[in-house]
């Protein structure tokens, strides 16, 4: 204790010199800690924002979601018994812009039940027969006087068309939050149909831009004409809606029925939101719903998980960014360790004097350890403060563009965590040089510059440094919601750091053994790279790790982008046509057949169904592997086929005979069967439109989603399922020149068919990926910035030696250009080598991720090559010359006086 107090007294005296010699140490820690604190604070701001606004995002306290069928009267009554409800219907549809002078009349012979097909309100819950379609099609006849199909006059009045996300809402919508409309006006009034044929609609600006419409303009969806009464600027529950294929349009439920698009078999999502009383329990509601409707398979979401996808995304991205921050801290740690080493080098005489005067090794260690950790505490506090402030700056600068409600504030846990990470990192990297100084005898301290001592310090000290490192890893894993990802990331970063250190040592070893270059500039440059105290190791490890991260991200971005843009379109269809009604099917086939260039045309029955039991065990209780659980979450698209579809690869069992009409047989994705523990002969039960169908697995297939073609994990034999009301899904591939004519031909003739242009989806997806990749690349710049700090520190540490060299070289006749050439060669060589090593490490890491996570081959990219190798060389050259410029500019006489 006495020696601790004495050490503290000595350390305080040392601290009088302030941050002298610790600027890079300080900056490295501030940067890493600030990054971690900022990411943590921002994530907490977003997550608490999501949690606090859960009921607004969900549109209620709970939401009951059903696909293809609305709630039964009993289910609706149950929901209403808990509080006020609001029902919405969402689907994809085509919107057509109309010239304002043409106001085509909508379909007039609307069947009475057309808007209430199937279970919509009247069908008893337990009825096992499929709801029968009306003998009259539930939508207008093609080509009839009141058809949904366009007349030639109408075709002329249509200017543009596009796929939209259509949502119909009732009078109670929204239960929470408020609609944003421009110009501001009453929401219900904006959707009103009034007494005329035209109903009101609100739409996003994107739709108006695509259709070249202005507020007040007309558009047609299905059989109904709408006037865009306002621009939709804020839709409170949009975030809980998932991925959008087109701009959002909101109409009234009554108006949706007039479109004729709501039929059995259409891809429709019904949501019933409930506003619970203040004291009502969500858990109790869920329990009661399950007890009352055990077989209905109601999907109930609640305000605490309003946007689970976004919640998960924020958590995952914050894990990644925190790990990037930790990498920055590790890179900075290399610089911090170097700074401590350089500081102790300058303190040799002082340490020797202290030892000569009777200080023992422990006192020396404690004195400088306390000094270093005091500065680390100051730096960590500064980093924490900066990290806490950064989200507020983000709010001020980009608040309006953040798509998620955020509660900006001070969050203690991430700030405390960042501070602890900073202190542990400082300890891990500072202890080894401190332990080394503690071990060296005074005499050897004086001689160390000429013949560096190889003492590494005693084991307990090195073990303490190792423990600090392990604590960082343990803490990072403990707070991460994704243990395995974090473990892999940290293992890769740690492995990368070690591999780069070894590469640096190998490089120095090779350079020393090279025959001397014949010209002085390369000889001096190479000599500078291997001299004691050179920046080589620090730059290769620190900047190298930062560049490796950038290379990994760039290669992965390129790989995924190439997969999306390159390999998909070659095999993928040009169009997906959704919701083709049976009555339209033959005409639809003829329309497509008119295009001789069309390839791989497939029209397949499309039914939504839910897997409810596996081998007789209810799905909720079945043991299912993690990667197969997605198939049990909600409704899946299923189909039926008598004939084995083209390109099918059976892995087990046999396809049923073409004429087979007996008990339902199932063809199942082999991966899914494996994950669900199912084999040939096992049963699987599906719930289709309220009816359970039990089938026996006849065969297993390979399903390759990467082709982009129609892929159904479940295919049933015909006999029962084909009696269920359903629509068709069609795909076709045409050359780019025929895409627009086909799009026009289909949309002109079949306005109720939603057309998804694969090219547009890929472009949208690619844009999303690019944004994500940009964000991730920007984040990895933090690691590079840390690397540059280390580079700056390492070069600055050698500045004195460079001043000496350049002075002597000037004295014996070297011009500034000659000296600059030596430095430039040295930095370019070091930077390019660092970049090349980083490219190697980045490629290895990206290959690992591409093969193991995405199961694709990585695509090497010139961009990554240039970015890392040329970037590394340029950065090192720029920083090196900027820092050593003083050595070139100083007049020799000035230096000779000080030498």
């Amino acid at each position, binding site marked *: 204790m006495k020696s601790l107090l004495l050490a503290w007294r000595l350390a305080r005296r040392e601290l009088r010199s302030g941050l002298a010699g610790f600027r890079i140490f300080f900056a490295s820690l501030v940067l890493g800690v600030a990054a971690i604190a900022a990411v943590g604070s921002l994530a907490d701001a977003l997550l608490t924002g999501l949690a606090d606004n859960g009921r607004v995002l969900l549109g209620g306290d709970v939401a009951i979601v059903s696909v293809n069928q609305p709630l039964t009267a009993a289910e609706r009554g149950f929901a209403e018994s808990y509080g006020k409800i609001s029902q919405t219907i969402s689907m994809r549809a085509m919107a057509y812009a109309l010239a304002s002078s043409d106001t085509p009349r909508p379909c007039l012979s609307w069947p009475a039940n057309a808007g209430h097909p199937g279970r919509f309100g009247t069908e008893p819950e337990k009825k096992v027969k499929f709801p029968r379609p009306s003998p009259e099609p539930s939508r207008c006849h093609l080509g009839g006087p009141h058809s949904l199909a366009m007349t030639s006059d109408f075709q002329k009045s249509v200017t543009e068309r596009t796929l939209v996300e259509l949502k119909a809402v009732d009078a109670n919508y929204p239960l929470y939050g408020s609609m944003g409309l421009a110009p501001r006006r009453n929401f219900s009034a904006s959707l009103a149909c009034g007494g005329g044929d035209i109903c009101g609609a609100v739409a996003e600006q994107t739709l108006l831009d695509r259709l070249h419409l202005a507020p007040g303009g007309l558009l047609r969806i299905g059989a109904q004409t709408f006037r865009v009464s306002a621009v939709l600027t804020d839709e409170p529950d949009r975030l809980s809606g998932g991925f959008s294929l087109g701009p959002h349009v909101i109409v009234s439920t009554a108006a949706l029925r007039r479109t004729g698009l709501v039929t059995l078999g259409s891809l429709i999502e019904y949501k019933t939101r409930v506003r619970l009383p203040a004291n009502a329990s969500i858990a109790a509601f869920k329990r009661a719903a399950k007890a009352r409707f055990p077989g209905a398979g109601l999907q109930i979401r609640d305000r605490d998980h309003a946007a689970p996808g976004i919640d998960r995304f924020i958590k995952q991205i914050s894990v990644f960014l925190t790990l990037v921050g930790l990498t920055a801290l590790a890179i900075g740690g290399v610089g911090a360790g170097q700074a401590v080493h350089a500081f102790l080098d300058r303190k040799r005489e002082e340490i020797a004097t202290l030892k000569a005067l009777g200080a023992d090794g422990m006192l020396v260690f404690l004195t400088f350890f306390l000094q270093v950790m005091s500065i680390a505490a100051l730096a960590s506090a500064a980093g924490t403060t900066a990290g806490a402030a950064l989200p507020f700056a983000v709010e001020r600068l980009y608040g309006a563009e953040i798509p998620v409600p955020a509660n900006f504030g001070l969050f203690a846990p991430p700030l405390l965590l960042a501070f602890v990470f900073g202190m542990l990192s400082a300890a891990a990297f500072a202890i080894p040089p401190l332990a080394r100084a503690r071990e060296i005898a005074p005499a050897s301290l004086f001689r160390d510059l000429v013949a560096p001592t190889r003492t590494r310090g005693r084991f307990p000290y090195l073990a303490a440094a190792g423990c600090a490192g392990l604590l960082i890893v343990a803490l990072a894993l403990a707070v991460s919601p994704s243990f395995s990802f974090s473990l892999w990331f940290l293992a890769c970063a740690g492995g990368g750091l070690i591999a780069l250190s070894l590469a640096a040592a190998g490089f120095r070893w090779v350079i020393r053994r090279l025959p001397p270059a014949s010209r*002085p500039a390369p000889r*001096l440059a190479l*000599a500078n790279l291997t001299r004691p105290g050179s920046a080589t190791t620090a730059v290769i490890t620190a900047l190298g790790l930062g560049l490796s991260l950038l290379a990994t991200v760039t290669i992965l971005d390129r790989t995924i982008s190439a997969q999306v843009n390159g390999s998909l379109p070659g095999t993928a269809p040009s169009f997906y046509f959704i919701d083709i009604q049976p009555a339209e099917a033959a005409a639809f086939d003829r329309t497509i057949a008119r295009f001789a260039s069309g390839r791989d045309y497939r029209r397949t029955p499309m039914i939504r169904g839910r897997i409810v039991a596996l081998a007789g065990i209810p799905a909720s209780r079945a043991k299912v592997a993690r990667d197969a659980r997605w198939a049990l979450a909600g409704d899946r698209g299923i189909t039926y086929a008598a004939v084995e579809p083209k390109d099918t690869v059976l892995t087990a069992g046999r396809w049923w005979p073409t004429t087979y009409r007996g008990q339902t047989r199932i063809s199942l994705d082999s991966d899914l069967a494996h994950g669900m523990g199912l084999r040939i002969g096992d049963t699987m039960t599906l719930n289709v439109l309220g009816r359970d169908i039990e089938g026996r697995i006849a065969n297993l297939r390979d399903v390759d989603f990467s082709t982009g073609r129609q892929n159904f994990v479940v295919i049933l034999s015909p006999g029962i399922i084909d009696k269920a009301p359903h629509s068709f899904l069609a795909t076709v591939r045409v050359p780019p020149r025929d895409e627009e004519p086909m799009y026009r031909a289909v949309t002109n003739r079949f306005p109720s068919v939603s057309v998804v242009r694969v090219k547009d989806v890929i472009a949208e997806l690619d844009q999303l990926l690019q944004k994500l990749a940009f964000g991730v690349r920007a984040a990895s710049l933090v690691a590079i910035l840390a690397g540059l700090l280390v580079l700056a520190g390492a070069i600055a540490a050698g500045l004195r030696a460079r001043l000496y060299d350049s002075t002597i*070289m000037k*004295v014996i*006749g*070297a*011009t500034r250009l000659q000296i600059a050439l030596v430095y430039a060669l040295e930095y370019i060589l070091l930077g390019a080598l660092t970049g090349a090593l980083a490219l190697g490490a980045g490629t290895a890491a990206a290959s690992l991720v591409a093969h193991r996570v995405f199961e694709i081959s990585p695509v090497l990219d010139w961009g990554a090559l240039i970015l890392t190798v040329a970037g590394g060389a340029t950065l090192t050259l720029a920083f090196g010359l900027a820092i050593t410029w003083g050595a070139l500019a100083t*007049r020799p006489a000035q230096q000779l006086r000080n030498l």
Partner: protein
Amino acid sequence: MQAAPAIVLDNVHLNLSSSAGPVNVLRGVSLSIGAGESVALLGPSGSGKSSLLMIAAGLEKPTSGKASLAGSDITNLGEDALARLRRETVGIVFQSFHLIATMTALENVALPLEFARADHAFERAREELARVGLSARAHHYPGQLSGGEQQRVALARAMVARPRVLFADEPTGNLDTETGSEVAELLFALPARANTTLFLVTHEVTLARRCARILRLKDGAILSDTRADAA
């Protein structure tokens, strides 16, 4: 026809700024040193000896006055032009040797020739090292050489390009007596053999007396200019 003087200083002043205010280091120094002459500059510490050497060698610009080296007016030459002139005409030996730590003895010696893009730089460097008796240490680094050896390498480096003038600033100041006298022998022998002017800054009278001419400097001004035998 008489050869141009190796060094000419005409009313040279040098004022340096310091935290305590401006310091007049040299106050109107004028001198002329002929080719092949050996001149010692004697004076107490702080008298301006090293500053005078630096101006004469083109390492420092005078505040006023004119300086010429080997017939060239160096008063207004730029830094790079001075560097070129130095590598062609000047060799310098310092008290602290000032070798480049990352280069072997041979590489240190060859460096001025390489800067001057001279032919056979290493062969000539090897010969020069042999002249100072260090052939066996050619591939040793400065850190592996004794003080005397380092100074001999520095002397070889200074003489390898056959300079018109050799400047030596307290060349034996960091050496013991025996090593110092060995270095001194070489210091006088090598320039004499090459007809190189020797400009020696020292505070050792015995060493100065080995020069043909002795200049005494005090408070930045020449106090006396005498032949060695008359000193």
